[in-house]
């Protein structure tokens, strides 16, 4: 991915810029996660621990296709609770929950004004995640791991830093639905995992 990024950068340097409309662009964004639904009952804190790398390629008339790969983590401390096992054990301790996510999606996005300095878009990501849900009861690490299917509608805007600049900014907001689940048998169960993501990042534009 990094080589693609810098290959695009080199291309951007070698050729003179020919206009506002990019042929492709690459994003690197800070991703803040806000949990929803059952996921919010698991961890209610919003989390700035995440980033996202993406690429978009112009197909025609503002329509782009591309990909996103991300890393995200949400976490929260909880007070004293007592946990029981089936063989006579019990532990009372503070505990800590976190979910670690690696999403990967193919993305279709439509830019309403691809030739303008500010280019808003709507998009849809389709893909999956690898998630680990951890319940840390002091030294004990109890966890689920799951793969899932995910859908992510997104709105956002690409903001070019200058008329012919190869650099820009990105701000985007998406809703993500996944088939992932949390299952700690007698302690916590979720149906599906949903969240909102706010992405703010930098963009390398290739014309």
């Amino acid at each position: 991915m990094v080589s693609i990024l810098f290959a695009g950068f080199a291309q951007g340097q070698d050729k003179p810029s020919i206009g506002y409309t990019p042929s492709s662009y690459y994003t690197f964004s800070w991703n803040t996660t806000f949990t929803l639904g059952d996921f919010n009952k698991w961890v209610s804190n919003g989390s700035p621990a995440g980033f996202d790398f993406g690429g978009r390629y112009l197909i025609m008339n503002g329509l782009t296709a591309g990909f996103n790969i991300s890393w995200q983590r949400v976490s929260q401390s909880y007070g004293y609770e007592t946990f029981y096992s089936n063989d006579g054990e019990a532990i009372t301790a503070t505990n800590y929950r976190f979910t670690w996510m690696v999403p990967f999606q193919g993305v279709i996005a439509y830019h309403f004004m691809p030739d303008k300095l500010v280019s808003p878009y709507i998009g849809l990501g389709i893909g999956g995640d690898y998630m680990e849900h951890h319940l840390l009861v002091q030294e004990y690490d109890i966890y689920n791991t799951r793969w899932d299917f995910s859908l992510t509608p997104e709105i956002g805007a690409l903001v070019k830093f200058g008329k012919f600049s190869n650099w820009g900014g990105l701000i985007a907001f998406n809703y993500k639905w996944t088939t992932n689940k949390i299952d700690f048998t007698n302690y916590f169960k979720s149906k599906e995992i949903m969240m909102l993501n706010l992405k703010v990042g930098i963009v390398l534009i290739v014309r």
Partner: protein
Amino acid sequence: MKPKILLILLVTGLFLVTSCSKYPPTSDRLLEDLVVYTKYDTSIKFSQFKTFSIVDSISYISQTDSGKVLDANAQAVLNQISQNMTSRGYILVNKNQNPDLGINVGVVKNVNVQVYYPGWYWGYPAYYPPWYWGGGSYYYPYYPVYITSYASGTLLIDMVDRKNITPDGKMYIRWNAYIRALLTNDHTLNQIKESIDQAFTQTKAFSN
């Protein structure tokens, strides 16, 4: 453009450091808080036991020394254990009155102490590894319950079955409790006593 590349690398590195790590920083995870762990033998009924005896001091072990603790705090701890037993109907008797249960109490300041042997209590083999939490597919303790690499104290309470001694003279430990982090800075005697209460409260065998 070179500064921009450096900027990208810097930002990338920052994000990688803050986000890629799966586990949150240990400072976020409250690892010095009190922990009350108990385990009882589910194969027996505790209602068969009527009397108990308890040691008159607390064994103490660290990396450098061991001995007995006899001070007022130790007595308060022993009294709290006895009170929890008597409030559940067990009768405190002297050691020479053939009690059904014997209670041994120890403290470990476990700075890299790897194995704790609480000593021999009327001849029982004391080593009893309690540190596997459940047998389900997703239970993975990554440290045994009282083997840690940071300084904290662990109070150990073992309850020995003197009523069902094996033919070769060995006795089973039917219940044990580990209360961790007692030696960290801010835990008061009251918190320790509350933790002892909690150890008894969370043991379902005592409420059956």
